[in-house]
């Protein structure tokens, strides 16, 4: 059971696509799984008042964030009959087009995997103390706020 192990969520910089392939491959020995649901957050080149976002610099209240991630995991495992769940979030600079969030849930049945994945994404956005500095191409910045 990977439920109880404390998990490292934060990764420095962007999440490479190969990490996602590796996570998927690691689950091919778990033959009680019938469905995986994956959510990926990617940095958009938003245009704000004529300036274009080039990257987001993520920071976090890391000790609290790790605690909140753990609480979200515990609640998710009690609410949903999932076999496993993995979360990775970037810290530091992530450029437009790169990935900053990777949520991966698995279950015997598709609806459970999908619902649990959505639950993680919404909970992470709402409850985890992560902060994002949107850096424009002209090197000015503004602070991102989740809607």
């Amino acid at each position, binding site marked *: 059971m990977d439920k109880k192990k404390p998990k490292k969520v934060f990764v420095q910089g962007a999440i490479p696509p190969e990490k996602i392939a590796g996570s998927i491959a690691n689950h091919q020995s778990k033959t009680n799984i019938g469905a995986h649901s994956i959510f990926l957050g990617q940095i958009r080149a938003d245009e704000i008042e004529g300036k274009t976002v080039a990257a987001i610099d993520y920071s976090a*209240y890391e000790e609290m964030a790790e605690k909140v991630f753990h609480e979200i995991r515990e609640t998710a495992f009690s609410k949903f009959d999932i076999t496993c769940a993995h979360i990775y979030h970037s810290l530091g600079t992530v450029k437009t087009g790169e990935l900053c*969030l990777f949520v991966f849930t698995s279950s015997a049945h598709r609806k459970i995997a999908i619902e649990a994945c959505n639950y993680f994404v919404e909970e992470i*956005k709402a409850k985890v103390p992560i*902060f994002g500095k949107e850096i424009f191409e002209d090197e000015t910045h503004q602070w991102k706020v*989740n809607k």
Partner: protein
Amino acid sequence: MKIRLRYFGMIAESAGKNDEVLELNDGISAKELKARQIERFELPDPESVQIAVNQNLEEEVELKDGDEVAFLPPFAGG
């Protein structure tokens, strides 16, 4: 009593620092400290500031020696 304050994101930017230790009189609540620091640093959008006492989001609590109080701007994870 000694309280450790931590500032994050745009609050750290406004405060010009990431953390500090304040010597405070007993009896102050987290909420009072929050109001004080919002005024001191003239934090923009004060309604959006949340504080965590020892990593728990709460304001209606009396502070005690050694507490860590974090000032958190809006979350932007994901």
